């Protein structure tokens, strides 16, 4: 079993751009990254100096914030509101869809590889048929404005391992859980601690729910973001994680860590659901493990760049991290 205390960074590659999204080619050391130069590149991390291989097409016109590889089809999403479909084999763009009116924040694939789900600042979650590129359904219900009258954002989306449930989370800490067949909302949760509105000193907010992840059995939902920020000029607040029995509406854990601060951008459950890995940061990055029985911090490490995305292999032995001007691989040795 991978032991979080054996976490070790094995490789780090500097990049000129900020890496916002990452997906892994199964059974390989190859990853595909989306970045702040609006480009998508594939890299082979098995070689000493990986050379980026670009995907070619009309491409995106803003930061690339979501990637999913489904067979040979790569689907990408960006702040330009577009959903692009690419052939991984030829690395050529095949289709472009004007998916949302505002920034697409995240993209997640269904476990069967037939669909992708997107969330955007138009406060909509949409389901897409990967084969046709057509919209299947639109999930509505998140408020367009914050209680103070400012634009809200729909940052996070996750799908359960059986594909039956979908969760979406927004800037003010509202979580909706949806049935992916009926497209109806079946539960909702509130995490007001994720909304960092400062009513007195600076009168704005920077937090919100930035990450969601269902437990392997689908019964629990982890919600990540940042807690109360003292000075919202910076990401100067504790990384905040809440875990729910979402069907019962019961909060099981409410965890904060101030040693390594900032947003939780990515959550990964261990295969046995005995620990959970959170990744993110302020101006630096962190990888923080919590024990899911006790809620105690198990282990923590960091790097020099805010982590925007990360994926693990099936055994959770290798973690690939997309960060501020760097790409990293971490390993978790077995105990």
């Amino acid at each position, binding site marked *: 079993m991978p032991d979080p205390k054996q976490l070790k960074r094995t490789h780090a590659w500097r990049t*000129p*751009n*900020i890496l916002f999204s990452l997906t892994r080619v199964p059974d390989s050391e190859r990853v595909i990254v989306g970045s*702040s*130069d*609006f480009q998508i590149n594939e890299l082979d991390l098995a070689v000493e100096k990986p050379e980026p291989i670009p995907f070619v097409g009309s491409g995106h*016109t*803003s*930061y690339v914030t979501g990637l999913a590889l489904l067979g040979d089809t790569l689907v990408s999403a960006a*702040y*330009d509101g577009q959903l692009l479909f690419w052939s991984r084999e030829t690395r050529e763009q095949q289709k472009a869809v004007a998916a949302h009116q505002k*920034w697409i924040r995240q993209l997640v694939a269904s476990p069967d590889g037939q669909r992708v789900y997107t969330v955007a*600042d138009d406060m909509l979650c949409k389901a897409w048929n990967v084969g046709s590129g057509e919209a299947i359904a639109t999930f509505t219900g998140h408020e367009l*404005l914050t209680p*103070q*009258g*400012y*634009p809200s*954002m729909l940052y996070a989306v996750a799908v359960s391992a059986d594909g039956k449930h979908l969760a979406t989370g927004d800037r003010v800490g509202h979580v909706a859980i949806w049935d992916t067949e009926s497209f109806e909302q079946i539960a909702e949760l509130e995490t007001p601690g994720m909304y960092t509105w400062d009513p*007195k*000193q*600076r*009168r*704005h*907010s*920077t937090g919100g729910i930035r990450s969601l992840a269902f437990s392997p059995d689908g019964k629990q939902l982890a919600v990540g973001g940042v807690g109360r920020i003292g000075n*919202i*000029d*910076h*990401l*100067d607040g504790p990384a905040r994680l809440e875990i729910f029995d979402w069907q019962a509406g019961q909060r099981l854990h409410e965890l904060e860590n101030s040693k390594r601060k*900032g947003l939780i951008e990515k959550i990964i459950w261990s295969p046995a659901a005995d620990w959970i890995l959170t990744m993110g*940061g*302020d*101006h*630096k990055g962190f990888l923080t493990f919590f024990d899911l029985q006790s809620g105690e911090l198990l282990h923590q490490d960091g790097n*020099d*760049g*805010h982590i925007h995305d990360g994926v693990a292999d099936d055994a959770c032995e290798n973690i690939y991290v997309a960060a*501020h001007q760097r790409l990293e691989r971490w390993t978790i040795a077995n105990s």
Partner: protein
Amino acid sequence: MTDSHFCGSPEHRISRRGWLGTTAAAGTALAADMTFLDVLQSPALASELQTRQKRVILLWLAGGASQFETWDPKPGRPTGGPFAKIQTSVPGIEISELMPKMSTRLHQHTSLIRSLNTRIADHGTAYNLMLTGRVGEPGVDFPDMGAVLAHELGQIDSEVPDYVSMYTSTEGRRKGKAGFLGARYNPMFLTDQMTPENIGKLDSISSVDHRDRAALRQLLAKRFSSDRPSPSVASHNTAYERVRGLMASEKLFDIDQEPRSVRNAYGPTQFGEQCLIARRLVEAGVPFVKVARAWWDSHGQNFETHLELCADLDHCMSALLDDLQQRGMLEDTLVITLGEFGRTPNINGSLGRDHFARAWSCSLSGCGIKPGTVYGKTDEDGNTVVDGEIGAGDLFATIFKALGIDYHKEYMLGSRPIPIADFGAKPVEEILA
């Protein structure tokens, strides 16, 4: 003395008697209190006022807004961030997509300056620079923009405040100062609430008693001064009138006096409400109103911050300009959008931008401005000014000239002349009407 506070042009010289006469002729009962100012919702009267005097509203973007996310976008460059640029109503001029409403109004109202190089990038010193138009010096307490413009545009016998400053957030809150111009030009400073404190009538005094006491005081003062004409006696009486005016100006700060449609146009945010108050104040004759929107200091999450704050700025600034225009006031009201500096081209590890004063932007709208113009240029990454560099003094000279104020004018501090725009400052003629 009573003539010394006008901008100088005969057509803008306030004739208080004329003003009172106009309103009296309109059949309006000019009670001793200031509730009559609400008749200014009448477009005809608002128009009458606007032909006489110039006003300034400063939208102060405290903490420093990003020029990349407002007036000088660089999409596709490493420094440009994620936002696109959008075409404005002026061919060839593009601004950030975060300012869509202003993009449709540029040709009507607004000029952009993209070439400020003010060098100073710490909040306190830069604040003083951008609100006094010059670097401070020991021993001289320079007045800020509001005090100077209150001095130049106000009237000595005004019953409304000359300088109102709203700053709700606590971060970066500074009161503003009249400096060597004296306390007469200090701002009425509103912080926690938008209605001035301690200007209400005591509950223990009835309205009738209040009016009667004022009438008695006026009667005695008139009898006294008729035999003793002197500036000091006149000043004493003016002070009483001014206090009475201030006491009765409470309604000016009450946006519930406005029709629902007008309030809706400004939107639900506090900044919107304060912009509406600003419009009410200048309409009633307040020469300078500062509305501070804090806090733009986006060292972390610059893009999230600007998504939130630019939506507010774009909407409220557009609503304010529309409202002023519809009331016929924009020709005589200058709306300045300014902060203490801009933000760095570099995007830091928290997706933030830091302080940057070498190449940044501001906007001027309305009075004296040639709309649809852009002055100055930065390089392709926004690192430096490559054309039309100006400093804070030049901006002040431009503001003064737009308002018809001689920017060469000097105040005397003892025997030392102090020019109202810093030594060597020149206005940007290209954006002046």
